[in-house]
């Protein structure tokens, strides 16, 4: 847009024209923020500086509303024992022993995925993969946690298939197995789907060779390299920026800039291989991926993390569109780009590797010693700022208020809902849950994902946790799960975060792995709404307390705010990812009943807990009461029991209980193993108090309550006593329910459902909706 003859807004021009009006509000800065910037610089910012501050100080990049709360997540020394990098790095890194370290992180791409589902979701995967790569790791797997409006809503038919095809297209083409994720539906996400993507990578960390990379620009004279795709107008600003006086040259003539970024997974794939080769050859001093806020963010963060300053020649940025001006170059969100700091002596080697992979690379500047980030364009200085002032951004302590409707919501007790009583009704209830989009088979989605590529996937969806082999010799592996439940968090955000943590932890534990670290994506409404801020603060507190109880650290994450339709925020939805270490993946445990005659055992305690349950949601579209109690002590004990039992070979299967409770878990273990079971509910549902153990009311609680910290296992035939003794020694409640085998799910005296019928019902919902 800037013609040769337009005068560029340089630092000198800015100093000489202090009164010139600037479109700070259109760029999303408040009057106070604008004044702060003027104060920092001692003059008005140039157009390029304004663009840079506006993106760096955006909620997305600066965490200005959430930072004050996120501080709670800082791990204690005890929690960070094996932490090589934590919050503040591109992604946290955990030492898993045997010379391996693992880095993982989850990130949102909610808004882009609503505008253009396919490309939005695809570039979401691309972005999180580059974060992992920037730590020096080879990305080895991805996961996706998805939430949409009602499954049968017209817009869901537009958004869901597009999001899934985008994740499939990008992840498959990158050669990263998709090992799991989530799929949930709720009217609260109708205008605002949640698309959270997780990536995990593995790096060497063995004393002789350490692949860990840092996002820093150190050493005056070192070169700043931009490599990968060319910079185009992708994602620049949006209408408000373009409508502004400064950014459009002539009324009406301003080229329309797209806010949609298009992903190029092939470029990302060769970029990954190129970076890994650069790391191996030791050619890089510091590296940063380009995500939101592109060159502005990468230069600022590298410079802010370094020991000097940085000088950039914007003319040297390889452009796809020659008409971009400095502000646009800085803000462009073109995908598949990385920035590295390279010693002059390594420059030739660096370029050689890039050439081998057919990756375009350019020297765009160098590290200086003056403490400033300086950028020039056509000979003029268009940016000169102290980089930390842009990288750190403001911190807000926004007002908080407990939601006015919370008491009313909690008073809406699920006890008032009509409960199934007879065996026939209970049978129907189970089939209705299994046949719902919420709880039905997710294969319509997961069949579009390659879960096998790289040949190390031991468990993937629909197992509780994904499990990936890291070392072929020893069988060392990593397990991952993501979980979140917006309904629970809506009823109680503190408990909701702990429940999500507990569930992800439990899912990882079910594979036989030991949970070791946490990442999280906090999806909330507008921070300017005090009720949303209260939810956020509660959820963060819940997560922090929960992690402390479990003794594992939060290693990183992402906050996505402004998730709302009109004035209505989504349910607060903290999505928690847990990483586990599996000592030997050959001893993994899966969810399906694997042996005829195996004793089926329920671990944990069942209480009458239906607030926010799948039953209330699917059968009655009801949300009220209190969510289940998060029992992290039991989660912890259960994880150690399952890990010991798995390594001793005591378990034929293990499956966590969550949405839909025991009934759904039983059905899933039957379907997954291709084997029925016969169980009895004698004495269950005890805390329902009086009433005889065999009454249908108790059967309902036993089957559909969603008490946390429970699991359904089957025991290797012949090892029953050992397993019982193990549970006993750890004080873990373990109730024998019956045995696996046969071709029906039989609950004695209540109902019997042939596997065929279960399977038909379970497989039906998504194909019926999406073809």
């Amino acid at each position, binding site marked *: 847009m800037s013609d040769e003859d337009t005068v560029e807004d340089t630092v000198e021009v800015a100093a000489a024209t202090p009164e010139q009006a600037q479109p700070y509000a259109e760029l999303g800065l408040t009057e106070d923020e604008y004044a702060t910037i003027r104060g920092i610089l001692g003059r008005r910012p140039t157009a390029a500086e304004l663009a840079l501050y506006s993106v760096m100080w955006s909620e997305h990049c600066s965490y200005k509303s959430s930072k004050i709360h996120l501080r709670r997540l800082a791990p204690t020394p005890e929690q960070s024992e094996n932490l090589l990098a934590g919050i503040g790095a591109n992604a946290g890194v955990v030492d898993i022993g045997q010379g391996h370290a693992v880095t993982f992180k989850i990130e949102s791409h909610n808004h882009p995925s609503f505008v253009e589902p396919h490309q939005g979701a695809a570039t979401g995967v691309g972005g999180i993969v580059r974060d992992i790569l920037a730590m020096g790791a080879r990305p080895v797997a991805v996961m996706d946690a998805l939430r949409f409006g009602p499954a049968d809503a017209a817009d869901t038919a537009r958004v869901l298939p597009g999001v899934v095809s985008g994740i499939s297209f990008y992840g498959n083409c990158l050669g990263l197995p998709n090992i799991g994720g989530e799929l949930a539906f709720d009217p609260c996400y109708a205008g605002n789907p949640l698309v959270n993507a997780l990536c995990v990578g593995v790096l060497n960390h063995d004393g002789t060779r350490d692949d860990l990379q840092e996002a820093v620009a150190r050493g005056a004279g070192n070169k700043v390299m931009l490599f990968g795709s060319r910079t185009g107008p992708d994602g620049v600003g949006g209408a408000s920026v373009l409508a502004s006086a400064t950014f459009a040259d002539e009324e009406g003539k301003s080229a329309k*800039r797209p806010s949609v970024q*298009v992903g190029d997974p092939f470029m990302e794939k060769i970029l990954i291989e190129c970076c890994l080769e650069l790391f191996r050859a030791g050619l890089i001093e510091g590296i940063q991926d380009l995500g939101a806020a592109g060159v502005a963010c990468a230069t600022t963060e590298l410079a802010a993390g370094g020991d000097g300053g940085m000088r950039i020649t914007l003319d040297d940025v390889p452009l796809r569109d020659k008409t971009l001006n400095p502000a646009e170059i800085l803000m462009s969100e073109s995908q598949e780009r990385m920035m590295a700091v390279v010693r002059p002596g390594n420059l030739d080697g660096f370029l050689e590797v890039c050439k081998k992979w057919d990756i375009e690379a350019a020297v765009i500047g160098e590290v200086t010693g003056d403490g400033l980030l300086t950028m020039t364009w056509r000979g003029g200085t268009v940016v000169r700022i102290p980089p930390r002032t842009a990288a750190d951004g403001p911190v807000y302590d926004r007002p908080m208020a407990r939601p006015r409707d919370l008491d009313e919501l909690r008073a809406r007790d699920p006890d008032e809902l009509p409960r199934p009583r007879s065996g026939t009704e209970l049978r129907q209830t189970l089939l209705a849950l299994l046949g719902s989009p919420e709880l039905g088979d997710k294969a319509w989605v997961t069949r579009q994902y390659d879960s096998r590529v790289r040949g190390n996937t031991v468990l993937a969806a629909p197992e509780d946790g994904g499990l990936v082999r890291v070392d072929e010799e020893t069988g060392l592996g990593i397990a991952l799960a993501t979980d979140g439940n917006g309904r629970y968090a809506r009823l109680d955000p503190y408990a909701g975060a702990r429940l999500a943590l507990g569930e992800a932890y439990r899912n990882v534990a079910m594979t036989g792995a030991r949970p070791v670290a946490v990442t999280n994506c906090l999806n909330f409404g507008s921070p300017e709404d005090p009720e949303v801020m209260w939810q956020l603060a509660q959820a963060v507190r819940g997560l922090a307390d929960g992690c402390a109880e479990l003794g594992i650290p939060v290693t990183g994450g992402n906050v996505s705010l402004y998730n709302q339709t009109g004035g209505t925020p989504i349910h607060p939805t903290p999505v928690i990812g847990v990483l586990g270490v599996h000592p030997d993946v050959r001893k993994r445990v899966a969810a399906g009943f694997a042996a005829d005659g195996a004793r089926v055992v329920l671990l944990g305690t069942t209480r009458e807990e239906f607030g926010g349950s799948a039953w209330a949601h699917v059968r009655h579209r009801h949300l009220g009461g209190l969510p289940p109690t998060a029992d992290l002590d039991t989660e912890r004990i259960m994880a150690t029991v399952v890990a010991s039992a798995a390594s001793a070979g005591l378990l034929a299967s293990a499956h966590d209980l969550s949405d839909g409770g025991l009934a759904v878990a039983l059905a899933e273990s039957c379907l997954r193993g291709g084997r029925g079971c016969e169980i009895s509910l004698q004495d269950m549902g005890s805390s329902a108090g009086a009433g005889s153990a065999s009454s249908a009311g108790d059967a309902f609680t036993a089957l559909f309550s969603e008490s946390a910290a429970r699991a359904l296992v089957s025991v290797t035939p012949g090892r029953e006593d050992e397993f019982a003794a193990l549970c006993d020694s750890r004080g873990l409640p373990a109730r024998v329910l019956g045995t696996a085998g046969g071709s029906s799910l039989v609950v004695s005296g209540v109902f019997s459902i042939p596997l065929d019928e279960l399977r038909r019902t379970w497989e039906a919902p998504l194909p019926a909706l999406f073809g």
Partner: protein
Amino acid sequence: MSRVIVDVMLKPEIHDPQGDAVLSASRRLGFGTITSVRQGKIFELEIDGPADDAALAAARELAAELLANPVIEEFTLRSAE
């Protein structure tokens, strides 16, 4: 029976990795004079009745609703003899 052809191209400012890949392949094959490639989609529609305004209007509506993604693409109509 009439035939209408709908050409769908990415908007000029939208990144076209496919076109770029074809361009670099064509360079490797020695087609040095080709300086840019953009890849799009083409739909040949057969419509009941003559190639009149009504047929074109139907094609245009279909293109806008289904064939092109207005967020990133634009389309043009041609009527084939």
